[in-house]
């Protein structure tokens, strides 16, 4: 029973095995390991070879291959027998219709009921090859697609401590294949160290982040970095790099333009302020002009009465003296002396009155010529006259404290606005006087030097420190306390001299004094 059973089992297993072989799509050849001749072949084998079973069985298995492959077929068989293990290779094969195909051939040594056999399984690889070719074409297509992207694309495996570059497209390679980058050894994935400034970073909505990297060589790149899982489900870092050099350049240029614009606006504003200052000053001068005119009138009338009356006194005393000489009242010597003393003291004060009257007249005249009621008129004047009338006006400030030395050289009259030029002298003289704390000297020099009328006003005052010197012509700049200085004096001087086509120069030694030099065109 048991034997029967076993035989039955064996029969069943063989049946199953046979069915399996028959059913297989691959061509299967069972080969005797001793002789190499085919013992069995399945249906697929018959179809593949296009031969009848009798034509195959008994033939050496390698003879199934075309002649040029027979040696390899033999070798394959020999190796299978020798190595006793499976081996797989690709072989050429000529189909019954003459078509040449590639076969995937697997050989393995087996023992079947104590007999050694080699099973050779052949599978038509055409389809697989085609699939693989297509696969390759597809990946080539994608690669080209990625290469042709206008942005650099790089992929790194992100988990490692030193991320390995998995992919970089051509654009990315080209971007960093420049002399500038190569020269400094910069690569796309390691250019942080060479960065010129902190990167500008922005996290985008989709979780990637963008970072602008500006290299020391001036190139700027925009990195957009995101993390994705690759086919093996591992995190990798996908970096898109855009060359922002030009754009950054444009932005910088724009910024530069903005800055220049802003500077220009500031410049204009300053000019406007200057003009306003001048205008305010002109207005001040105009109202000063009418004020002076009124004052001159108001003073001259009573002054006329005073000087005339004083003159009358002088004349009257002369007459009185003559009268007394012929009168018997003074025949008495003592009496005559008393009369003389009274008359002499009157003489003395009337002469003082006369001087005082002349002084007042002078001041009023200076004030008048300083304010120049005909202020809008250009005139040919000797500016030394202007210096003199200005000096009269500031004399109260200089008196006893400051000595004025005049070194007037010959100068021709020049065409100018006399009131404005006088104001220049006024401002310079007042400044000089202010600079002299105790006692000192103001020297005024005039000269004709090669087509220029030169006026130099020097003082032995405090001088101007080097760091202050560039600022003194700025409107509003003053080192005098508020309420004392307005800081407008020199800016007006500068403007007036400029309007006259002239120049103004300063030289100063702190502790020793200052010289302002004005040059006005002589013609």
């Amino acid at each position, binding site marked *: 029973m048991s034997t029967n059973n076993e035989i039955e089992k064996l029969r069943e297993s063989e049946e199953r095995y046979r069915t399996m072989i028959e059913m297989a799509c691959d061509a299967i050849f069972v080969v005797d390991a001793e002789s190499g001749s085919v013992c069995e072949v399945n249906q697929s084998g018959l179809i593949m070879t296009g031969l009848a079973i009798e034509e195959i069985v008994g033939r050496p298995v390698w003879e199934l291959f075309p002649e040029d492959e027979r040696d390899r077929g033999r070798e394959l068989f020999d190796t299978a027998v020798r190595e006793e293990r499976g081996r797989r290779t690709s072989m050429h094969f000529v189909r019954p219709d003459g078509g040449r195909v590639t076969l995937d051939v697997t050989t393995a040594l087996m023992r079947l009921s104590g007999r050694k056999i080699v099973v050779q399984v052949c599978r038509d690889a055409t389809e697989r090859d085609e699939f693989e070719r297509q696969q390759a074409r597809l990946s080539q297509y994608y690669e080209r697609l990625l290469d042709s992207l206008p942005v650099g694309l790089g992929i790194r495996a992100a988990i490692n401590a030193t991320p390995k570059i998995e992919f970089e497209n051509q654009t990315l390679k080209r971007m960093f294949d420049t002399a500038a980058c190569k020269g400094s050894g910069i690569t796309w994935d390691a250019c942080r160290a060479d960065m010129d400034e902190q990167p500008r970073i922005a996290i985008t909505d989709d979780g990637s982040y963008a970072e602008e990297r500006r290299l020391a060589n001036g190139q700027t790149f925009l990195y957009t970095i995101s993390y994705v899982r690759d086919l093996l489900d591992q995190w990798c870092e996908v970096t898109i790099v855009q060359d922002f050099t030009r754009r950054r350049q444009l932005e910088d240029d724009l910024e530069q333009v903005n800055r220049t614009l802003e500077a220009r606006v500031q410049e204009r504003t300053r000019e406007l302020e200057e003009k306003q200052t001048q205008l305010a000053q002109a207005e001040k001068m105009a109202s000063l002009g009418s004020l002076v005119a009124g004052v001159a009138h108001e003073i001259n*009338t*009573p*002054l006329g*009465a005073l000087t005339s009356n004083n003159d*009358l006194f002088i004349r009257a005393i002369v007459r009185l003296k003559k009268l007394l000489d012929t009168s018997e009242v003074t025949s008495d010597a003592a009496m005559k002396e008393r009369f003389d003393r009274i008359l002499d003291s009157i003489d003395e004060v009337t002469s003082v009155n006369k001087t005082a009257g002349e002084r007042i007249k002078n001041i009023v005249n200076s004030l008048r010529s300083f304010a120049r009621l005909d202020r809008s008129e250009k005139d040919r004047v000797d500016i030394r006259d202007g210096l003199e009338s200005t000096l009269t006006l500031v004399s109260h400030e200089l008196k006893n404290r400051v000595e004025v030395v005049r070194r007037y050289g010959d100068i021709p009259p020049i065409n100018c606005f006399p009131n404005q030029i006088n104001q220049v002298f006024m401002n310079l003289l007042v400044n000089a006087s202010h600079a002299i704390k105790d006692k000192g000297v103001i020297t005024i020099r005039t000269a004709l030097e090669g087509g220029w009328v030169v006026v130099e006003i020097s003082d032995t005052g405090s001088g101007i420190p080097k760091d202050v010197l560039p600022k003194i012509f700025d409107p509003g700049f003053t080192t005098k306390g508020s309420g004392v200085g307005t800081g407008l004096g020199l800016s007006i001087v500068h403007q007036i001299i400029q309007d006259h086509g002239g120049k103004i120069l300063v030289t100063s030694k702190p502790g020793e004094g200052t010289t302002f030099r004005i040059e006005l065109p002589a013609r």
Partner: protein
Amino acid sequence: MTASSNTDAGRSGTIVIVDDEEMVLTSLRSFLTLETDYEVQSFLSAKEALQYIGANDIDVVMSDYLMPEMDGISFLAEVKKIRPEVPRIILTGYADKENAIKAINDVGLFQYIEKPWDNDDLLIILRNGMEKQRLMKKLQQKIEEINRAYGELEGLHKEIVKTFV
């Protein structure tokens, strides 16, 4: 009047002075009274002065420039209408030569004097004014004489014609 002490005896005449300031009038009047034989008529108001000038014989007029009711230039222009032969002098405290000179040409002024004035200058100007006025008067007399003589001659001529024709 201290006519005996006058150094300019024989040159007397009448001067009209107008100024809105009493002190100026007093000063001028005192000075001229001391130094000259002129008869000085002084007025604070230009209108009153005009009335006087219309009714009296005068030789020189001197007026202030700036005055409240009527300015010196208008006043002197009026004087010119009444007595064109009288020299007119403006006294100005305004110290505006250009305006004054313009006025001299417009109104035909004889002279202008700036305040504060110099008494010697004032005397010379007044004397010259008087002299001018005197010569003008003389000229006028001569013209009248000639006119009269001519009239007589003409009358004679008519009579002769009448007699012979």
